[in-house]
């Protein structure tokens, strides 16, 4: 497909095998990339405009450039493959279908930041990807794409898979580092940022799977080639995960700035039969919900922000008119309450209280005051939590009440959710 980068080899049968991958141009970026000076490589990625694909959207080349040059400590690269943002399921496919593309990107990234060691942190539930990536690493070592003096370039890189054990908070990069060091997955105070003091207090860069999967293509084809897609501030393509009430849920790689309704109606086959669009969570559960009337926008960082939400991890959850928005908030707050690490009070207590109130509203109706009480709690959490987990846990509550306050009020008047009473769950 002309508009695909990281999925461009997905149609090739068994591309996860090294021979097939190499036969289709795989690892061809190494000769060029590993003979470039690290700074040149960083400049190239900066010029491409590639932004982190994990959720925060921070410019990748800029992040790499934060690694100090004057340190005697070893540098590390960590690939965050702990995919667990509700609505997001692209990294699993990227690893299962084309693991060598990720390794190739990691080898280049290691060279750019002066790291000889990289870890791929895969969530423990992903047994398939853990095995597939492990096998790919084994193959790459056997053929000299990993280890000492890669392809005669003098560059050494070792990579290993590290299995996670079930905790969403690893998406927060410093919590991931703690858990890679064998600790509870609690976030660290920043600064210092990981680029200066990360894994084993050494300079560490943490990048998402999709971010790293783009690197070999940028090295092969150049920054301008990458920028032919998207906009000035949203360069390249993006894998959008579409789930919920659509006819064809799945991962679709599209140029950034593709109209959001095209994604829903053409790629995902439209809202499920006979129903109409009510709301969309455009970028994973950590971003505000958009009502249907605000969805006529382009899918890029700046347009979604202007509409009042964020592109985030590009996990798009589509909801039709049958969806109860109190139930949506209750479901997502339940998630954050479970995943809160408990380190800071606003998040630990806030997520628990929000859930208790939403649960009351949903099951027995609660009281009219509860709606403003919820907003008061969110106000006490917003910007006051130790890490982004707490701050983002309020999104579905704040945007839910903003756009569908009448539904919350109806729950109070009706003594709970009518729909839930009908469905029996």
């Amino acid at each position, binding site marked *: 497909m002309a508009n695909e980068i990281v999925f461009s080899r997905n149609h090739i049968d068994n591309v996860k095998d090294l021979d097939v991958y190499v036969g289709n141009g795989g690892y061809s970026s190494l000769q060029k990339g590993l003979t470039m000076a690290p700074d040149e490589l960083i400049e190239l990625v900066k010029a491409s405009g590639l932004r982190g694909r994990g959720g925060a959207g921070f410019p990748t080349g800029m992040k790499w450039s934060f690694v100090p040059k004057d340190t005697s400590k070893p540098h590390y690269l960590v690939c965050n493959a702990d*995919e667990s943002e509700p609505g997001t399921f692209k*990294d699993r496919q990227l690893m299962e279908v084309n693991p060598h593309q990720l390794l190739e990107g990691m080898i280049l990234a290691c060279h750019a930041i002066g790291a000889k060691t990289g870890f791929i942190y895969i969530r423990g539930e992903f*047994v398939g990807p853990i095995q597939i990536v492990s096998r790919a690493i084994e193959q790459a*070592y056997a053929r000299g794409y990993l280890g000492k003096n890669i392809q005669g370039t003098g560059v050494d890189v070792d*990579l290993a898979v590290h*299995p996670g*054990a079930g905790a969403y908070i690893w998406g927060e990069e410093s919590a991931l580092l703690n858990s890679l060091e*064998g600790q509870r997955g609690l976030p660290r105070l920043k600064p210092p940022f990981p680029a200066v003091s990360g894994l084993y207090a050494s300079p560490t860069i943490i990048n998402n799977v999709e971010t790293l999967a783009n690197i070999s293509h940028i090295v092969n084809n150049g920054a301008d080639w990458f920028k032919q897609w998207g906009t000035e501030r949203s360069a390249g393509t993006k894998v959008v995960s579409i789930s919920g009430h659509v006819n064809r849920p799945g991962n679709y790689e599209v140029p950034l700035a593709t109209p959001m309704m095209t994604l829903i109606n053409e790629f995902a086959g439209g809202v499920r039969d006979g129903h109409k669009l009510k709301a969309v969570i455009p970028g994973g559960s950590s971003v505000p919900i958009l009502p249907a009337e605000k969805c006529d926008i382009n899918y890029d960082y700046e347009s979604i922000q202007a509409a009042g939400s964020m592109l985030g991890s590009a996990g798009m959850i589509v909801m039709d008119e049958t969806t109860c928005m109190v139930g949506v908030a209750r479901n*997502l707050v339940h998630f954050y309450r479970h995943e809160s690490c408990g380190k800071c009070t606003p998040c630990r207590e806030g997520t628990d209280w929000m859930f208790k109130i939403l649960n009351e509203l949903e099951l027995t109706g609660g009281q009219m005051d509860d709606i403003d009480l919820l907003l008061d709690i969110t106000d006490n959490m917003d910007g006051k939590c130790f890490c982004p987990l707490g701050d983002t846990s309020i999104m579905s509550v704040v945007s839910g009440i903003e756009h569908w306050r009448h539904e919350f009020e109806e729950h109070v008047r009706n003594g709970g959710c009518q729909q839930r009473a009908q469905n029996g769950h």
Partner: protein
Amino acid sequence: MAHLTAESRQRINDIAARYPEKRSALLPALYVAQEQDGIVTDEAIIDIAELLEATPAYVKGVASFYTMYYRYSVGKYILQVCGTLSCELCGSGQLVNHLEERLGIKEGETTPDGRFTFETVECLGACGGAPVMLLGDKYYEKLTIKQLDAIIDDLRFKPASDHPEPPQLVPFEDKPAGAKST
């Protein structure tokens, strides 16, 4: 309840040697213990602490933080139905109701014969296949009640000798080289 076998201890030592610092092997080590006994026993915690130069309290603290380590006995098959938003929108609630009825247990419980434990879990990262259930190392996507019944029937009557091995979660066996640069 058992201490780690010599083989498990060896595996943990091998894993630890691949990291710049031993303690990084803690999460994989807990998997080794769980593969040995089905759960992470108190004795294993003491052994792991000794091997990785930590205190048992520290190891226990880490083990209790993560959802994938079981400290108390669970069923032979652990049925994990995802309850997070995309799955709920696509009917995971019906799967949960059906499982409770069919197995006669509530979520988090184990059937009296020790065969099934049923849990609802948070996002499994497979929202495109909602509703999703994880069983061992296999994701069942776009799962219907009919398929769920077939899965349970299959496992319910399987003789013990046919039980599949638990999933291998520590992918460090027989690797030509590891993360540690020499």
